[in-house]
């Protein structure tokens, strides 16, 4: 079976959906964080496959940007989670609701 762009499309859709479902359903901050990364990479995959299909390198430029931004985001996000664990000894997002009161 030849692999064409529709396969990539479905794969990225699948990855994205898994990301969304994980983000929505899990309470562990690290898992949610990983799911967000998954969504970003799903988009990256999509961009690269379209870039290949249309023979246009512009989309790949975006991919690099997203990777750089994602790396920065990981640094900040993990730092926040580490700080959070130090304060409350947990990474459950539902504990952090004190601003409501």
């Amino acid at each position, binding site marked *: 079976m030849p692999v064409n762009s529709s396969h990539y499309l479905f794969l990225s859709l699948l990855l994205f959906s898994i990301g969304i479902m994980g983000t929505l359903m899990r309470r562990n901050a690290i898992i949610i964080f990983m799911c967000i990364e998954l969504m970003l990479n799903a988009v990256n995959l999509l961009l690269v496959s379209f870039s290949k299909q249309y023979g246009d390198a512009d989309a790949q430029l975006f991919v690099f940007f997203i990777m750089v931004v994602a790396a920065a985001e990981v640094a900040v996000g993990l730092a926040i989670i580490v700080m959070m664990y130090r304060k409350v000894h947990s990474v459950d997002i*539902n504990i952090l609701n004190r601003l409501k009161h």
Partner: protein
Amino acid sequence: MGSRPPDLAIRIFEQHMSQLVYLVPLFPLIGFLINGLLWNKMPKTLGGIIGSATILASFCVSLGIFFEVKSDAFHGPVIVTLFDFIQSGKISIPMAFQVDALSSLFLLIITGVGFLIHVYSTSYMHHDEGMVKYFAYLNLFVFSMLLLILGANYLVMFIGWEGVGLCSYLLIGFWFKNREYTNAAKKAFVMNRIGDLGFLIGMLLVLLNFGTLTYTDFFGQIAGGHAAPPSSIYTWITICFFIGATGKSAQIPLYTWLPDAMAGPTPVSALIHAATMVTAGIYMIARSNVLYSLSPFTLHIVAIIGLATAILAATIATVQYDIKKVLAYSTVSQLGFMFLALGVGAYTTAVFHVMTHAFFKALLFLGSGSVIHAMGGEQDIRKMGGLGKHMRITQATFFIGCLAISGIPGLSGFFSKDAILADAFAHDQVLYVLGVVAAMMTAFYMFRLYFLTFRGSFRGTEYQRHHLHESPAAMTIPLIVLAILSVVGGYVGVPEVLGGHNEIGKFLGSVVTNFGQHELEKNTEFMLMGISVGVSVLMIAVAYSVNRKPKFAESKGLAKVLENKWYVDELYEAAIVKPIEGLSRLLDRFVERMGIDGLVNGVGKTVRWGGDRLRLLQTGQVGFYIFVMVLGIVALFTLSFFWIK
């Protein structure tokens, strides 16, 4: 050859005096600034000296200007432009002063009488802690009044016009701890504002129709007939100006502030509310004589209002018991006479009466101030009597003032009042008869005041009797000077029938052209003089016999109506003040509170209510936020999907 150098120097100095006219208002302004800025640091005596000295300096410059204007070498008005005040498109209004016969005469009256009253004030106000502030206000007043007189266009006049109104307000309410006095000040200010609006509208009409406010331009245009607007515009402008004059010069219907203005210190009443400020309306109309002569209809109204005011105020004056109130109504009545003169087109006669009235009415007010001073603040003539024995100079000068205002031959009031009555006779006999009635009452109430105050036996308390004393020299000398002026002041306007040359009329003739004057026969004029002198003497006799043994019973009938000033204040209260108050309350309740407040508060309330509801969305659960975010993204995506299609 021939002319000696000093002589030449004097001549050159005289010739160019009018170029220095800006000095005249500058001195009082400096005095105001010094006294006004340092009022709480300055010693009282120094404040008084500065205040008086600046006016004296102005008076000296005014004298120089007057003699230059009077000399034969003087031709036409001299206009001194200081700077451009408003320069916009075709409109050009400079800050400029105009020196001519009319303004130079008023300069002398204001600075001369003003100086005497300043000197008097140094003694009268000496016990008052706000004396320096008082002199600051007084100097500011003189400055504004001089602007009013000197302005070469209506705008400069208007600035002075507003300035004197402000100073009048400040000085009426000078003893501001007394609520009644501050109310009197407010009343004066509001009444004046009504008139000022008329003046302002008139000014804008002139600007709109003629494109200039400068006297020489404007009068040149309308006299030369270059501009030919519909003649009704003259009527409108003159009526608007006249409304302004009724406010400032206390004529019907805006006269009620002047009697209340007596709340201020007595020298203020003498300077502002008798000698100078209240004559501003007459000055304005005399200045605009070319304009008024084009509108006989307005002149008719001016004459009627003036006469009605003269009679109404005179009737009220006959029954008042407050020494200053009598003089205040007398002032209103005399101003009515001046407007009568203006109304019959005898502008120069009106100005003549302004001058003589300034002398004798300032004298009478200062005399009453001397009496009040001696009585320890008492103003009720029922509690006076027999004061003549204790204060000879005040009595004598007051007597001269009474004779002058009653029109006894030989004194200044005779010449000016008689000239007004003669002009009224020439215009319309009915005006004359009513004018004589008002003149009769003048003689009666003045001598009623004189007899009740200075003759008979003392009716005050024992304490006051011991306190009675003649005032110090700083107060009596101005009285004496003014008394002399009240006697001789009339000789500048002796009519030709009495062998005079009516010099003031000729002097003013270069600026002011009388309107529709008729020559009277010699015999008629003698007869008119005989009548007016006869009734005056008769009324003095009546006043003497009535007040020899004064009884102050509760008055009934007409006397009660008069004592309550024809209930005009009550009428205004019921007809104007109350309805406006009601309307304000209505507007307050429905427009202000329900409308505007409701709108403003409603916006706040709605936002708050909405915020209260939206707040519930913020649960604090991060999972929920993410869920809503995703929901939002999906919604946007769906929307854009269909949108693009």
